């Protein structure tokens, strides 16, 4: 069984099938890309995996354990953390406090104070927020708040991190830095990533494998090269 196993997940919102019988298997240590036009169901899939949205049908298994139906906080403590496309900072707390809460309560619960400090410092450092750590999170720019989303997810100590369009609004230099950061986190800490990104170049560079959704359905799956050659993807995505 794969590290993260999504089996036959559907989600209906009224008359709309946001997800239709989606399967997805993510292996430990890989960077998994999720592609699809606006409204394809990418964010909904993250919400189902993270426990924010209950699937209409289907199951999610993580690390050999069924997690469907668990609360988001239980799923986080099991080792999965997601970021939000529309950022949700703890605006009235400092940047450091934002990240510290995640270190206290995430899957790293029960750590010593010192190892929690390390987790916080590493998370801030890896997204380049160390200098702003004392400032209020609400005072960060949008790009800063996107990076804070990542730092918070990392600080939970999650083994699987799902990033929802964290590069939107970053300039090319910043995107380059972000790519390096994520690759480095995978190398040094063995974190598995699932990444949703409209910056196709970034997704192609970073991902080991890519899944393409369209109107809630799986339409293609493969390596970046395979996806790049796929006519169907080209039609629905770029056409």
């Amino acid at each position, binding site marked *: 069984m794969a590290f993260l196993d999504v089996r036959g997940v559907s989600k209906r919102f009224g008359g709309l099938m946001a997800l239709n019988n989606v399967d997805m298997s993510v292996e430990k240590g890989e960077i998994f890309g999720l592609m699809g036009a606006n409204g394809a169901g990418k964010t909904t899939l993250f919400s189902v995996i*993270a426990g924010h949205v209950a699937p209409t049908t289907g199951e999610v298994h993580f690390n050999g354990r069924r997690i469907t139906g668990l609360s*988001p906080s*239980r799923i986080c403590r099991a080792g999965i953390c997601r970021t939000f496309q529309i950022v949700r*900072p703890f*605006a009235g707390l400092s940047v450091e*406090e934002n990240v*510290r809460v995640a270190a206290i*309560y995430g899957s790293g619960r029960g750590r010593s104070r010192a190892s929690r400090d390390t987790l916080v410092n590493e998370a801030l450092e890896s997204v380049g927020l160390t200098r702003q750590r004392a400032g209020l999170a609400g005072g960060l720019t949008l790009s800063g708040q996107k990076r804070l989303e990542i730092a918070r997810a990392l600080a*939970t100590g999650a083994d699987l991190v799902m990033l929802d369009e964290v590069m939107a609004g970053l300039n090319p230099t910043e995107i380059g830095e972000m790519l390096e950061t994520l690759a480095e986190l995978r190398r040094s800490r063995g974190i598995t990533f699932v990444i949703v990104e409209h910056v196709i170049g970034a997704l192609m560079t970073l991902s080991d494998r890519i899944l393409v959704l369209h109107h809630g359905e799986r339409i293609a799956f493969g390596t970046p090269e395979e996806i790049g050659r796929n006519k169907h993807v080209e039609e629905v995505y770029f056409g």
Partner: protein
Amino acid sequence: MKALDIIFGLALAIGGLLVPLSGDAYLMGLVFQLAMWIALAQSWSMLSSTTGYLSLGHAVFYGIGAYVCVLLTGVVPFGVALAAGAAASAVFAGLIGLPVLRVQGPYFVILTYGLAELVRNVVMRIESALGSFGRMIFMVPSFEVLVWCMVALGILATLGAAAVRHSALGAGLAAIRENEVAAETVGVPVARLKLLAFVASATIPGAVGGLALLRTGYFEPAQAFDPVISFTIVTMALVGGTETVRGPVLGALGFTLLSEALWSSLPQLYMIVLGLTLIAFILFVPRGLSGLADRALGRG
């Protein structure tokens, strides 16, 4: 500032504990009131300042404590009756907490107010059905002992509020206040922590209600569950400032002294002054007396 806070708190605590030795009834009455409001406002802050869930029904915990205490005095030692009052408030909070804390914002404010009124009316009905229109209690401990107990509760509530704020629990509650969905996402067990804070904030008011009852020696439901108690707690806590442990102390201090001045000259003005002060502080001094103190001492 931190050192100043500790010195100030120690001075208040020691002063409060020494006053009964003087035997001055007026001073003891003042200390009793002050300690009572500090205990209530600090308890309220454990839930409401930390999570932003503003309770407008804390009189219910005070009333339950008073009721349990009046039923038990004479049956068990008064210390046990007080503890039972606190326990009853805690249990009540634990029972209603989960559904009540699902409701947010203004709805939570109104729900807590409504629940407190409901309980008040139920107790009034029960009492009148039993043919009891107010109960007298005898064998009350000396006033000195009651003052000591109340000061102890004020100290306990302040230490408790400080402990909550500076603990992992406090960090989780602050995250809940700022963004509940994000808090849940980074692993904060939101429902559990809110319930914990709710129970913590209900417990000491139960004992406070019991002590206040022992002081008057008379129980009357409309009085023990008086919503003015809830209004006063909220006003003191907000005027004092919700960002620090110092806030409720300053708010209670300011209002107790103010009402002391008013009761003797213009008692009918009390509610008006309470309302006006609250409005003025919310509009012009959002960080409360505590924020003013910071500024006066050149900080923040």
